[in-house]
């Protein structure tokens, strides 16, 4: 139908996964030897081009957005734990806003299709 749904689906899926990872970092803020992790997003905009009906047109080839969980290598404290509570809370807020933006856009997209069907 349209790549928009796939892009939004991936965005929502990955921000949800990132929320889980941030939640486990916050839960383990005082656990000795725990290493903070983060979700690195793949290249969402790589090759995100428009449909080509003419060789001069740009191409549209959306690839699934991938998320990779990596261990952070920031400065460790004496208990060999490298979770920074302030950073994690800030990232959680940012991530939740991104998630809600994804949901809002998906909602608008569904409304657009509904309107188109009604007329």
């Amino acid at each position, binding site marked *: 139908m349209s790549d928009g749904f796939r892009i939004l689906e991936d965005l929502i899926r990955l921000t949800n996964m990132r929320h*889980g990872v941030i*939640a*486990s970092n*916050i*839960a383990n803020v*005082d*656990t000795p030897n725990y290493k903070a992790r983060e979700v690195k997003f793949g290249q969402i905009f790589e090759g995100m081009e428009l449909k080509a009906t003419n060789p001069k047109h740009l191409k549209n080839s959306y690839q699934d957005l991938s998320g990779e969980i990596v261990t952070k290598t920031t400065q460790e404290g004496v208990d060999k734990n490298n979770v920074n509570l302030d950073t994690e809370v800030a990232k959680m807020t940012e991530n939740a806003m991104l998630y809600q933006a994804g*949901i809002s856009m998906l909602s608008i997209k*569904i409304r657009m299709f509904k309107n188109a069907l009604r007329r």
Partner: protein
Amino acid sequence: MNSFIVFEISASALGAQGQRMNVIASNMANAHSTRTQEGGPYRRKDVVFSSVVLDSCPGEFKGVKVVDIATDNTPFKMVYDPGHPDADKDGHVAMPNINIIEEMVNMMMASRAYEASVSTFNMSKAMFMKTLELGRL
């Protein structure tokens, strides 16, 4: 990924920090207890946290659990107080190895971690409520 994992993770952190708070409260309350059931003055206790994979969680999402309540074996503080019933023949009393300042700092850290988990919980709830709105346009 089970969508409700975040709630379990936050709940495990709230439980663990709550237990830490109990231990700190017990340390503070017994800062001057010279007699215990085990005999001798009260010894400071501390919680040991460990990250755990929760039952319904895949490996990447870890909760936290109190695996042990350890006893601090640092020496007792010797206070000169000849009038105390537990004073030895030189007039010294063995007082618990508790430093109130240290306990206060621990308490603040526990409270901050607890608050962070509460806000994670609320944030997760807000995200889910927003998702539920998708159905009703």
